[in-house]
């Protein structure tokens, strides 16, 4: 168990002008489950590699339990990592894969065998112990990769998109298993993903990264309810938040502090907070463009004018048809306001 602190981490890869990570500071509490999310190229995997010691930062420090490990080699950090490719040793049996880390630490044979069997049992791998990874399915390999991490009782777990190669059903189940595992072990976990939904379900806190910058760190609910800027607003939540560009007509438009007339503003509203009403009753009117029935809900794309579209999430079995005239109304108190530079602008009313 360990607390991990990142202090102003910068990483510039050789031959690249743009830093992969531009000064990241983040503290992960002992036993916390943190998700790091961002689009590809945002630097999220770099963070994990710096914590693991697989890469060295250009500047900044990495601390584990207050000890500076910035320059320590990965083998001395006592962290476990689950790779996207699983990185199972193909020439070893499942048993050998699971015991490799224990063997490297010089634990005696009987103890290794006991721990391997216990972990294999808990992951349902008992019958596969003498197989090689090539003879396992994707889900089984994923469990071996997980087992290899658990068996060592590391200070912290690092996950690098370990579920992205699984089919959606298995992914959902494994996610739940990971949360259960975390509750059982109480270990620090850092989970990197590009999938915002995965981040929401797995992170007690979520760090959103873009272009090597930390955009926001908050609980899933906080991120959803009060995104710090336009990027976070559109990245978190599905379908993405509607953004309507405009100019403040009066200073009292939303009543947000510091608001000025004629300011370029952007209003955001989640599709879940958009209600479809009759054309006369709508704040805005338009025509239904595309209807996506999802079963539990219906996603309706509404064309307001040539450049403006609003996406609404209506209940399941919604009767809208393409071409229907429709009005849209915004749930009160659910508007998000962003300034021209993209930053959140006070609170909506």
């Amino acid at each position, binding site marked *: 168990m360990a607390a991990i602190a990142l202090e102003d981490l910068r990483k510039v890869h050789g031959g690249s002008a743009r830093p992969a990570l531009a000064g990241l500071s983040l503290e992960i509490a002992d036993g916390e489950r943190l998700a790091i999310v961002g689009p590809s190229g945002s630097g999220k995997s770099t963070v994990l590699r710096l914590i*693991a*010691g*697989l890469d060295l930062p250009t500047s900044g420090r990495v601390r584990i339990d207050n000890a500076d490990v910035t320059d320590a*080699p*990965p*083998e001395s*950090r*006592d*962290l*476990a*990592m689950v*790779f996207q*490719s699983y*990185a*199972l*040793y*193909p*020439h070893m049996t499942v048993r050998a894969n699971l015991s*490799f*880390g224990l063997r*490297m*630490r010089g634990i005696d044979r009987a103890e290794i065998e006991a721990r391997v069997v216990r972990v294999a049992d808990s992951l349902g791998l008992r019958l596969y112990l003498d197989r*090689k*990874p*090539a003879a396992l399915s*994707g889900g089984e390999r994923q469990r071996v990769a997980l087992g*290899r991490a658990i068996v*060592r009782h590391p200070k912290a777990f690092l996950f690098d998109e370990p579920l992205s190669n699984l089919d959606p059903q298995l992914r959902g189940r494994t996610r739940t298993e990971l949360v259960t595992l975390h509750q059982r072990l109480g270990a620090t976990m850092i989970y990197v993903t590009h999938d915002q939904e995965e981040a929401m379900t797995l992170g007690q806190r979520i760090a959103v990264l873009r272009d090597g910058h930390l955009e926001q760190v908050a609980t899933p609910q906080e991120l959803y309810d009060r995104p710090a800027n336009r990027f976070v607003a559109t990245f978190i939540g599905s379908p993405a938040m509607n953004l309507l560009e405009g100019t403040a007509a009066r200073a009292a438009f939303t009543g947000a502090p510091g608001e000025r007339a004629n300011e370029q503003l952007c209003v955001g509203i989640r599709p879940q907070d958009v209600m479809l009403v009759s054309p006369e009753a709508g704040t805005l009117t338009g025509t239904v463009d595309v209807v996506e029935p999802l079963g539990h809900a219906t996603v309706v794309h509404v064309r307001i004018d040539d450049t403006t579209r609003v996406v609404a999430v209506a209940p399941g079995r919604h009767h809208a048809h393409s071409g229907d005239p429709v009005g849209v109304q915004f749930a009160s108190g659910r508007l998000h306001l962003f300034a021209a530079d993209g930053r959140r602008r006070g609170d909506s009313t």
Partner: protein
Amino acid sequence: MNALIKRVAMTALLVFWALPLCWMVLASLRPESALYATTATATAGFGGNHYRALFAERRFWQPMLNSIVVASSTTLLALVVAVPCAYAMARLQFRGKRALMAVVLAISTFPQVSIVPSLFLILRALGLIDTIPGLVLPYLTFATPLAVWLMAGFFRELPPDLEEAARLDGASRLRAAVEVALPLAAPAVATTAILTFLYAWNEFLFALSFTVSPDRQTVPVAIALLQGRYQVPWGQILAAAVTASVPVAVVVLAFQRRIVKGLTAGAVKG
């Protein structure tokens, strides 16, 4: 249709390659006079006379032994040096890596004949002329760079994830290389071994230049020197050629199984 074309092409290639080989084997078993006969006389008997003459009178087992020792030692030493070197080239960051690789490549493409005189002087100064190490050492100058290039290419293809996983599992860089990368490199080591062995087995120029006594000759040199001034004993030369092909075939077959096995064992991603 496609399959038919493929089959025809394969057969044509097989005939093209196998015919001289078959002819060589057949001819080595027939009396010399039958080689020059204009009609294929079925009456001329097959027999091992040429082989008997080759081994009994010409003591051909001596060059065979020399070649086996020289080629095996060259292969072994080249691999011992090249594998760690190639690993470092593929995985470690160090100054001048590119330049070093370029030099290695340049050396392996050097025309042999241009360094024979200087090598001769060096070997003479070391007292290694007409000795087995006197052949292995110069062979290494070509075999090692070749092996480094082949192996470095392979190590670069190996996903770094596996060694990184080993590092996090607590293995030092060296242990990760030895316990994870090296076993996975087995097929590449086998391929490199075959090529190095073939190279050393076929080498002629150095063997001719740096050996003096018949006791130190390797197979290619011995075969070339079989012909006398007034007479070419084709039967014996062909018998020698057949004999010389056997160890090569054995080595290739032995390692080939490993190569095929290695390819399937490596297919774990996905």
